[in-house]
């Protein structure tokens, strides 16, 4: 059942020219969203919040009744909850003006609000290595009892959520669009998965469509929700770097996964490390850093066969790859294996989860 203060908060949020700081002011001076709504209705808001411009309050007065009714209907129908900054379990520590005063939230896992939370973000076009790292980090964090927070986008975001889901852990998806508009459309299944293993939150009203400006703004919420940020792969400029900047402003620790200088998708991470971010050498380190409990070396949910259990051809090929992507021809010329042997070995490695194919190259895992 939706509480009256949540409906009131949603109604306030939908009022014209209701900025986060104005909302924060009136909710605090009135002592709660419900009383703020009645203060607007009966006009006492003029005395309680003398600094709010009169025309703004006039607009609020004209709209408050219909806004309240509309908010009640939509929240009841969708089962959406509204998190408000004066809640006991309000997840955003920072009280900076830029931070939202309330968030819509939907999902089955509201216990995420009381757990430690870590953001895992990165590029939408990861290399297979970055994608695997993101998934592994998601798994480790979930295993260690932390909540994986990310942005529901393609690439690193999706893999991080997916890792947490596979480990049967908890995750928060921070949406830029309204919660009724799954975006990107190709991640609709991921949205459902995140709802089942945690919650999706967003500050924008229902029906808000994706736009270019929305996502950088959304990234500050990701930073606000967490106690540390992990950047897995990021180009020198991009959304993940926005999140890092926002985290830096909040004084959060930033972990970055170092990469090869030949990998343009590692440029951002390497730059962050040069600027003082903590290099995340092994995904398990992040789990160790946030939890005192013992951490398993490799999450059981990610199946990989140990190298020693493979045939010698497969080991030869794996070592010849040297951690970097290569074509089958390069493998053949490096190893003196026949084409058929090398092809068989790559297939075996693939089956063992030690290799993937992408963009015509073999990527050791």
């Amino acid at each position, binding site marked *: 059942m939706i509480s009256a203060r949540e409906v009131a908060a949603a109604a306030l949020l939908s009022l014209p020219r209701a900025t986060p700081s104005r909302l924060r002011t009136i909710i605090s001076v009135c002592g709660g969203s419900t009383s703020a709504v009645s203060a607007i209705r009966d006009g006492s808001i003029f005395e309680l919040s003398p600094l709010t411009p009169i025309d703004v309050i006039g607009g609020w007065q004209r709209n408050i009744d219909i806004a309240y009714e509309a908010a009640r209907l939509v929240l009841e129908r969708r089962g959406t909850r509204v998190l408000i900054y004066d809640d006991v379990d309000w997840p955003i520590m920072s009280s900076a003006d830029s931070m939202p005063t309330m968030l819509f939230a939907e999902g089955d896992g509201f216990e995420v609000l009381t757990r430690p939370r870590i953001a895992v973000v990165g590029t939408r076009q990861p290399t297979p290595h970055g994608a695997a790292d993101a998934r592994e980090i998601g798994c480790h964090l979930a295993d260690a009892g932390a909540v994986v927070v990310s942005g529901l986008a*393609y690439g690193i975001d999706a893999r991080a959520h997916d890792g947490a889901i596979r480990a049967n852990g908890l995750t928060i998806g921070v949406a830029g669009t309204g919660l009724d508009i799954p975006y*990107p459309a190709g991640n609709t299944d991921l949205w459902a998965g995140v709802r089942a293993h945690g919650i999706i939150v967003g500050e924008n009203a229902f029906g808000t469509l994706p736009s270019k400006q929305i996502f950088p703004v959304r990234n500050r919420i990701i930073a606000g929700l967490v106690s540390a940020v992990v950047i897995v792969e990021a180009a020198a400029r991009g959304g993940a770097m926005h999140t890092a900047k926002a985290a830096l402003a909040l004084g959060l620790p930033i972990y970055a996964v170092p990469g090869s200088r030949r990998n343009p998708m590692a440029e951002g991470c390497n730059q962050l490390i040069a600027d003082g971010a903590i290099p995340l050498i092994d995904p398990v380190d992040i789990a160790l850093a946030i939890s005192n409990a013992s951490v398993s070396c490799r999450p059981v949910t990610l199946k990989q066969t140990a190298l020693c259990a493979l045939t010698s051809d497969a080991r030869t090929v794996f070592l010849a790859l040297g951690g970097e992507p290569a*074509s089958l021809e390069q493998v053949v010329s490096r190893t003196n294996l026949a084409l058929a042997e090398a092809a*068989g070995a790559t*297939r075996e490695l*693939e089956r063992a989860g030690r290799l993937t*194919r992408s963009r015509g190259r073999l990527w050791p895992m």
Partner: protein
Amino acid sequence: MLAAVQSANLFGIEGRTVLVETHVARGLPSYTVVGLPDTAGRESRERVRAAIQSSDLGWPAQRITVNLAPATMRKSGSGLELAIALSLLVATSTVPDSALDGVGVLGELGLDGGVRAIDGTLALVDVLARSGVTRVIVPFDNAAEAALVGSVEVLPARNLTELRACLKAELPWPEMPQPLPRPLENSDQLDLSEIRGLLVARTALAVAAVGGHHVLFTGEPGAGKTMLARRLPTIMVPLELKAALEVTRIHSASGLNRSGWLIENPPLRAPHHSSSVAALIGGGSGAHIRTGEITRAHRGALFLDEIAEFAPTVLDALRQPLEERVVRICRSGHTVELPADFILVACCNPCPCGRSDIQCRCSDLVRDRFRRRLSAPLLDRFDLRVRVNAPSPDEPPGASSAETLDRVLVASERQAYRLRDSPWRRNAHIGARALPDLCSLSALARLRFLEICRDLRLSGRGAACVQRVARTLADLDDLAAIGDAHVEIAAGLREDLA
């Protein structure tokens, strides 16, 4: 005052005999051609009249009727003009009747009475020979080509005046022309040794050359896809006489070969990606159906560079000919069946940006959309799908065309021997039911095959295709039995486009 001369007309790539009858009677002077000629045929009236008048052979001021029999068949082109002129000369007794007994006549006329070359001489002489003609009069420039038929005496004609004298035995027939120099073919200047590395792609090319498997190269620009594809004819088995005659006949009928040489190397046709359906498949209206690129590539290779840029309708039109190796073009009134047994070799970039894989910033979504330009049914017809990665410059040059061709020849012999009692000519064509007999796997290979089918989740068609390619690979190694290595490589040559 009545005369009849044997001639022939092109229909698709086949010749059909036409009897040219001329009737000269008293009456108002007139000249009528009946028997369903097309525009070029109707215009031939003026050329025939001018040619006879310029040759001082006398145009009868009488009522002239020319009939092209059979009357219900549409005739196309200008190749009947010489036959019309000669029949007229016989009808006016300028040329003795007996001179054209058992003679077929082909050729176009110039206004000065000269005899001009025509398309499709080989097919036309062939059909005349089969209809019982023992001697053919052909344009001087087509004489070498007509001589390829062998079973008829070829009489070259340069102009009407000389021709009349020869027919009346006043002059000897002209010497057969010296053949033109053999036209330089693409494949004469190309060699596989110009390409470095690319071991896998080279293997695929050799497999295609032997087994007739269609091959798709994907890879970043500059990796060598086009170079490889262009060199496919250099490693294909030269055509045996029957096939060479067939190909020469097609090219001659398509107006591509006037040199008179027999085409002995498999042709490579490379249409631009703006080609229309009719250009690729064949078509045209009226009497003359033009061959498409797929027919011109018969017994050779059709090379579609940047296949993703072709219009989807054009590509999907390829599906039926790829399956049946003939194309049937139907127009109201007639149907032409054109042969189209070719190896399809295609190239495309993995993404629209055309940069190397490392620099490519195309999202997976964009790449997906680009890939989907090739429909799944078409993609499925490529037995060999190979990713071509640019070789590093320090790699040694690979085997030359001659070395590869040696292996291909041996493998082709083995293949031909195995398929001698089957309806198929190449491994890629073997029907699914005959696979256990013709592509039997050794015990070890069978184990590996099942493992691969499971690992790669191959469909029934995919598995059969791996088996056929494995057969060709075993042929290339000159082995009777398919080994596990062949199966392994065959599976590796059928990559998903990712």
